[in-house]
């Protein structure tokens, strides 16, 4: 094979300068002529009947162009379960429920108008705990649904768990919980909607799913009685996604409805408070898990049941069990697996996709109990995992076909780089956890495809139109590298356009760590077509056999005869400006041959799987409960690093997101109300909190990936929490089973272990309440 020129190189993101210098245009920067500003009025209650809404005073405010409530709009059903509407009718079910919306000539007028909308509520009893919500007599969040438990049967049983349980020499069982955390995108959400006179709709939106959003908006138009019109989705520069933009949201429909009513472009843009309180979180979980192994440490079964707090409505959070199944059935070799998840309505906020899509929650429970089981069996935790490690060629019990697998190597690298066996100081500990994730697309939708169109100009430059979405992760750069490599061009010769559904082909969305793999393969497919044509033309021009020619450094060259060469641009001009001239264009639609899950949830969801192991060394302050991370090693089998610099960026960012998840981040909901909708009290980690991270990369060269690559977008935050929790256990002997692992929880556990109460006194019958502090 020819030496690589672009692929495998540490090339800075092609939009880095624009972003660093402020030239990049985000939704915040966009303004259309005549544009109005939309604002949303949210519920004052977590659960209440809407008795009456009086908008008359708001409508009279000068500058107000429209005030809408649920009564003014057609029934537009949103979300995977179609249980949500842009503006609520009859009832509110959470604090983030949209009750009214205003369009005005200036943002402050719109805000003022919201204060003039008078809503009369009749409060209803709320339900905030999913386990209570499952009980008979609990208030119903959706009366017509008859029960708070969603009719989504996440249930599988492969092999025979009960029989295996009887055989097991060692069994551990426990309960783990995870809570709400949020994406914290730097760019807040926003959309602009505009209708042309014929009612064709253009939506500028921060979305990770331009093609699916287009379809959702078309359905909304249909509900509005606007038939057979076009919808165009334009993405401005996106300031972070992490899954948050994987659905369409009330605010987007509200922008559309307001634009329709006012006949003017309308922008709805979230401020930071709204971004915290009115966007969806990661899916919180309650997990009951047991695992057992034989006397040699071979896993015999895994039995998991989960309760998911669905919140008041249903977005992709409720479908995260589909991805949780992957680690539950297939992280390590497990012959017998049972899994069941129930999604339960409550009056809390509702959850969405977030980096890892359920995998971090499941892996927290799995990898914590793996350590517990290793201890019960008296086997070193790394050795225990090695005994059970997946291997290339395995087909897991769920039917996942593992083509390449660097799991054992990842564990070995972590062990080595973390100096696992080094003597430890007091209260110092090491822990590790591994991951499996989809690395070759994920067939969760009917298509997992992505299209690409390439157009060559007269100067040897490429315009590439892709369905992919660059939301900061750097897919434009990676795609440009792949195409530049294939066509022998420089990366700056490739202009990637991904922003407009009018010109870009279809793509299912930027999710499941699939963009490098799927959009990369799509781009490669189109580039191969162009390459074939270029070689053909070159062969004719240079009067050489095609097999002797290569594309390199913007030229077509003869391998052996240095005299025989031509600039690609020159060749293109010759081809264009001649009799019966031609220009080079190509299209390619790549849809991986992965499988949708069957009724029993079996199926090879992804073309290939990414593996990784994270190891961490911590020091626990046993007086304060604070956990300090001394060193972190995150090793991944990525197939091939197309751009090692961007890859490391993904891993560093993922690890910091994971450490925040493990130790500090939490959306605090009190009876459904967001108590910390700001960066002061939402403890996302800062630049100064960044820990030393090593990100060793293993290249297993996957035959299906572009240049051998597998996806790596999400894995960085998947096994972080259990790795940290395992290290804490190693350091001070307490196992924290609830995220985040706050100093309070650690200190309480340390004291409980010593037989002390929270205040450090001997537990005794005489003064059980002594350390309760009177308010």
């Amino acid at each position, binding site marked *: 094979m020819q030496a690589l020129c672009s692929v495998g190189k540490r090339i800075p993101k092609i939009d880095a300068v624009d972003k660093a210098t402020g030239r990049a245009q985000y939704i915040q920067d966009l303004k259309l002529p005549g544009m109005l500003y939309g604002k949303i009025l949210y519920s004052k209650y977590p659960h209440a009947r809407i008795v009456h809404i009086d908008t008359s005073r708001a409508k009279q405010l000068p500058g107000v162009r429209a005030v809408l409530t649920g009564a003014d709009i057609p029934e537009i059903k949103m979300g995977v379960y179609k249980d949500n509407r842009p503006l609520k009718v009859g009832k509110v079910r959470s604090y983030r429920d949209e009750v009214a919306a205003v369009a005005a000539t200036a943002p*402050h007028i719109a805000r003022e108008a919201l204060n003039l909308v008078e809503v009369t509520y009749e409060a209803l009893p709320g339900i905030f705990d999913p386990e209570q919500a499952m009980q008979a007599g609990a208030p119903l969040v959706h009366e017509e649904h008859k029960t708070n438990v969603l009719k989504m049967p996440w249930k599988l049983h492969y092999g025979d768990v009960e029989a295996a349980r009887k055989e097991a020499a060692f069994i551990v069982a426990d309960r783990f919980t995870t809570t709400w955390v949020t994406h914290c995108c730097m760019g807040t959400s926003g959309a602009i909607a505009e209708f042309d006179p014929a009612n064709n709709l253009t939506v500028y939106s921060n979305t990770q799913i331009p093609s699916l959003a287009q379809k959702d908006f078309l359905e909304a138009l249909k509900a509005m009685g606007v038939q057979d019109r076009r919808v165009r989705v334009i993405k401005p520069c996106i300031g972070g996604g992490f899954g948050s933009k994987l659905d369409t949201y009330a605010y987007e429909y509200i922008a559309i409805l307001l634009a329709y009513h006012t006949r003017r472009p309308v922008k709805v843009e979230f401020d930071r408070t709204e971004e915290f309180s009115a966007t969806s979180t990661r899916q919180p979980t309650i997990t009951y898990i047991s695992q057992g192994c034989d006397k040699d440490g071979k896993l015999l079964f895994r039995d998991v049941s989960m309760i998911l707090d669905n919140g008041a409505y249903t977005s992709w959070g409720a479908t995260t069990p589909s991805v949780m199944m992957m680690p539950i059935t297939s992280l390590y070799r497990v012959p017998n697996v049972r899994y069941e998840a129930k999604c339960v309505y409550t009056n809390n906020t509702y959850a969405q996709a977030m980096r890892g899509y359920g995998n971090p929650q499941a892996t927290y429970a799995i990898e914590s109990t793996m350590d517990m089981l290793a201890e019960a069996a008296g086997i070193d935790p790394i050795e225990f995992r090695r005994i059970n490690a997946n291997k290339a060629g395995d087909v897991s019990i769920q039917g996942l076909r593992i083509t390449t697998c660097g799991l054992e190597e990842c564990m070995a690298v972590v062990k080595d780089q973390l100096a696992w066996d080094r003597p430890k100081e007091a209260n110092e500990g090491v822990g590790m956890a591994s991951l499996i994730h989809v690395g070759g697309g994920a067939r969760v939708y009917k298509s997992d495809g992505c299209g690409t169109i390439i157009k060559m100009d007269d100067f040897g430059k490429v315009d590439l139109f892709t369905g992919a979405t660059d939301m900061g992760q750097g897919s434009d750069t990676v795609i440009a590298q792949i195409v530049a490599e294939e066509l022998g061009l420089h990366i700056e010769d490739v202009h990637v356009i991904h922003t407009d559904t009018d010109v870009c082909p279809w793509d299912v969305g930027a999710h499941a760590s699939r963009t490098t793999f799927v959009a990369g393969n799509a781009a490669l497919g189109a580039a191969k077509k162009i390459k074939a044509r270029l070689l053909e033309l070159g062969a004719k021009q240079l009067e050489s056999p095609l097999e002797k020619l290569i594309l390199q450094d913007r030229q077509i060259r003869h391998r052996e005869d240095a005299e025989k060469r031509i600039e690609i641009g020159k060749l293109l001009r010759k081809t264009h400006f001649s009799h019966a001239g031609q220009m080079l264009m190509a299209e390619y639609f790549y849809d991986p041959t992965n499988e949708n899950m069957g009724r029993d949830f079996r199926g090879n969801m992804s073309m290939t799987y990414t593996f990784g192991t994270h190891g961490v060394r911590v020091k626990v302050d046993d*007086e*304060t409960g604070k956990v300090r991370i001394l060193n972190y090693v995150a090793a991944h089998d990525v197939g091939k690093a197309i751009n090692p610099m961007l890859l490391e960026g993904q891993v560093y960012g993922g690890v910091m997101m994971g450490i925040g998840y493990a*130790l*500090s981040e939490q959306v*605090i909901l009190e009876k459904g109300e967001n*108590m*910390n909708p700001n*960066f*002061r*009290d939402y*403890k996302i*980690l*800062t*630049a*100064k*909190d960044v820990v030393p991270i090593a990100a060793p990369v293993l290249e297993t060269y996957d035959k299906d990936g572009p240049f051998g690559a597998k996806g790596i977008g999400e894995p960085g935050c998947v096994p972080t929490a259990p790795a940290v929790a395992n290290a804490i256990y190693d350091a001070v002997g307490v196992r924290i089973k609830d995220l985040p692992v*706050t*100093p*309070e929880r650690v*200190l309480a556990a340390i004291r409980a272990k010593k037989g002390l109460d*929270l*205040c*450090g006194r001997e537990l005794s019958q005489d003064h059980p309440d002594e*350390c*309760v*502090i009177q*308010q």
Partner: protein
Amino acid sequence: MRKFTYLVPKTLDEAISLHEARGERAKYIAGGTDVLVKIKEGKLAPDYLISLKHILSQDRPFLNNETGELYVGAFMTHRSIEKSPLVQLHYPILHDAVKNIGSVQIRNVATIGGNLVNAVPSADGAIPLIALDGKAHIYSAKGERTMELLRFFLGPGQCDLGRGEILTEVVIPPQRPRTGSAYMKHGRREAMELPMLGVGVLLSLEEDLNTCAQARICLGVAAPTPFRALMAEKFLVGKAINAENLAEAGRIAGDESRVRDSIRGVAWYRREMVGVLVKRMGLKALERAENKAEGGRLTV
């Protein structure tokens, strides 16, 4: 955000008369890192903001060589205090506090005066200045008055300033010989973090460099205002400074605290941390006192 008029007086008297003429509708602004946040949140809606940043004054802490007093001007930024070698060397407790406020960007604009006047229980700047026995100097049309900084704080967000009054500086009396001091903010992050608890300890030693001659233990977020744990201080005086006695002082200080549950921390944990941090800051203060057994009157 509401529109406002921004006024830029060059002298204290000018600032005061601008304020007087506008009364309730006016608000002073220094770095604006509290006041602008409140305006954006709609908690304040002044028509006039009167900047204090252009009033001619010293821009870094300085020592009065006659009296040995340290002058910390209200309009000084946290960053200029942090960068002051004088503070770094001789008032480490103040350095401990200001160097961890917000971020460099915040410290470059935010002032110590704004921090004190804003008067939240979590104000990092208040604790060390109280522990150093600072006196607040307050200026108004009626002239200047001074008061103990400790008594300046009346309640959460409330301080003893009349309308239009300006805090001009905090003056710190000379320290006793063999004095050491330390402050720590307890939080979850390394930056951009309001303290869940702030603990400052100042200790002056007898000539044996062991017996406590004087102790000041000052706590933030442990009560509605910054306060001194007087019982704990009293306990230490005359005793040997060691981990055991400091732990006991910490326990007493914990009992003196009026901690409560909030989203930023639970009461039991805060109280426990008072104990731990009083001990740790005490040990640090001891170490610093020993290292600088000279102390006393400074010349720089």
